[in-house]
């Protein structure tokens, strides 16, 4: 087990390194320089040159990259070129925001979709099953920005019971913050429900078909116990894998939701950083999203092998 984790960690680090190089190379193709991007196209060329000099944007690309990598290893990610503040601060705030939204969406969607999937599986072929399956499928098919617009229209503009943006006023209490995050969270719930429910359903059906389930039923155990003790564990396996892969999306991919709901998450920060050629911010931001994604998939794989002895043994051989 330890060997397995160790190997995965090393591989993940290599991936991260590759990721940083890819983003580095990629960001160099963006036109314009930092000074010009900050001051805008109408500013004096002299002013732009002076600013570039100040910001150290005239160093060679390689040295900029090495500077940054060196900084990361000492946990100093440098200053955002556009905001003139430490990257940690800018990203820290954004990360906390993204985490809050992701967590809220998670807490709602995971139990809901697992329950839905299991329920549908237990009534496989019935109308209720088809409703849940097709309903989930349709909801997922609708792009997140469409959900956002519809939810805002209904709950905020027509009914007026929920705010149209996700950023609560400063110093808001826990419940106020949740109130502001409900609508964007539900957009995510709609988008993710179908996928996770489908996985849970498929896993449950497979588990219901399995020998150990039949044995338990023959032994006379009530259905609820059967489900709880045997079926759930196995239907959770594919679900965990799916949830893990959605982590990257939930943290870094919510640009559209963040834009519509005016929420300062990582998605928006990355987008702005790429537009303004804010190299330190962009690099560090992508790395953080990458780390979240890799950690999530690693945890999922560990959970998978813990829950499923067969897989663990196969991986260790």
């Amino acid at each position, binding site marked *: 087990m330890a060997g397995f984790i160790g190997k995965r960690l090393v591989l993940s680090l290599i991936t991260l390194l590759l990721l940083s190089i890819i*983003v580095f190379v990629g960001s160099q193709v963006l036109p314009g320089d930092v000074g010009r991007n900050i001051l805008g196209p109408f500013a004096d060329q002299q002013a732009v040159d002076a600013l570039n000099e100040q910001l150290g944007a005239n160093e060679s690309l390689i040295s900029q990259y090495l500077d940054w990598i060196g900084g990361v290893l000492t946990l100093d990610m440098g200053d955002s070129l556009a905001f003139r503040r430490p990257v940690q601060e800018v990203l820290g705030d954004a990360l906390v925001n993204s985490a809050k939204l992701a967590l809220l969406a998670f807490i709602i969607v995971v139990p809901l979709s697992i329950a839905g999937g299991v329920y549908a599986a237990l009534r496989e072929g019935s109308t209720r099953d088809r409703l849940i399956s097709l309903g989930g499928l349709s909801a997922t098919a609708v*792009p997140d920005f469409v959900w956002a617009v519809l939810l805002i229209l209904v709950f905020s503009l027509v009914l007026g019971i929920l705010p149209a943006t996700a950023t609560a006023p400063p110093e808001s209490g826990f419940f106020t913050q949740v109130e502001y995050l409900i609508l964007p969270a539900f957009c995510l719930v709609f988008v993710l429900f179908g996928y996770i429910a489908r996985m849970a359903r498929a896993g449950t059906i497979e588990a219901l078909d399995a020998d150990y389930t039949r044995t338990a039923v023959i032994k006379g155990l009530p259905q609820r116990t059967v489900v709880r003790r045997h079926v759930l564990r196995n239907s959770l396996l594919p679900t965990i894998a799916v949830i893990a892969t959605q982590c990257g999306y939930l943290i870094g991919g919510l640009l559209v939701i963040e834009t519509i709901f005016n929420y300062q998450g990582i998605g928006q920060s*990355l987008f702005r950083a790429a537009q303004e050629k804010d190299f330190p911010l962009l690099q560090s931001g992508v790395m953080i999203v990458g780390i979240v994604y890799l950690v999530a998939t690693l945890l999922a794989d560990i959970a998978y092998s813990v829950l499923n002895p067969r897989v663990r043994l196969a991986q260790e051989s």
Partner: protein
Amino acid sequence: MSTASVDTGLPAPAAPAGDAERAAQRERFALLRSSKTFLVGAGILGIFVICAIFGEALAPDDPYATNPLNDLAAPSSDHWFGTDRVGRDVFSRVIVGARDILVVAPAATLLGTVIGTALGLITGYYRGAVDDVVSRVIDAFLAIPVVILGILAITALGPSNLTVIIVIGVVFAPVIARTVRAAVLQEREMEYVAAAQLRNEKAPYVMFAEILPNVMGPVMVEFTVRLGYAVFTVATLSFLGFGIQPPAPDWGVQVYEHYGLISGGYWWPVLFPALAIGILVIAVNMIADGIAKAFER
């Protein structure tokens, strides 16, 4: 070849591999034809395809003709879906808008499938060091948010349908590669692979001529599943301003241009393109579902 007529007293030889394969194919098609979901999905897709091909002929108005003095007119007998921000007929734009997305999304998915399958074959076949290295690169790409990739690509290549195709193709390839790799790992252990290797066939031949036909099932399933995502993603990229450019009547762009206006009661320029996107994705998913079930057997 018929074996029924001559009775040699020996047990009948097994039917040649080709026959079994063809029988399985026929069975699959039969399954598809009887699957309601598949048929409905295909029907809906068919309607969109007709819109895409015959767009201008079906549209009552010129989708590009502006009329700013009649902007944001509500749906009426003159304009079934109303007019947009610069007075264009929304109904015509929704119909003609099918073309771009039905060209870009499948092309992107095809590109992603081709690249992904190639990568999956390579990593699955070679395993070892090659697999490790390439898989790491694949993982790195998987970790990059789609939009960042989108921005970089658009600024480097300029906004156009081609750029969108490339971006989505590159983004989907890793995911497809993963699935194909898993399938290849299984096939690799089969006898025919060993047989080919014993014959000293070159690696590319083994991969593409021997293994590939046997993983076409999962590949096809992946293609259709990804197609749904592709439609979704194309719409999202357009919504963010990357990709299909005005005045093209792209559905995502139409939603983007008008969603701020819904609070003023101007729902029609947003609702109809949004519904079009949703219905198309659902239709493609239904087709994908049907195909997946057919190949499961």
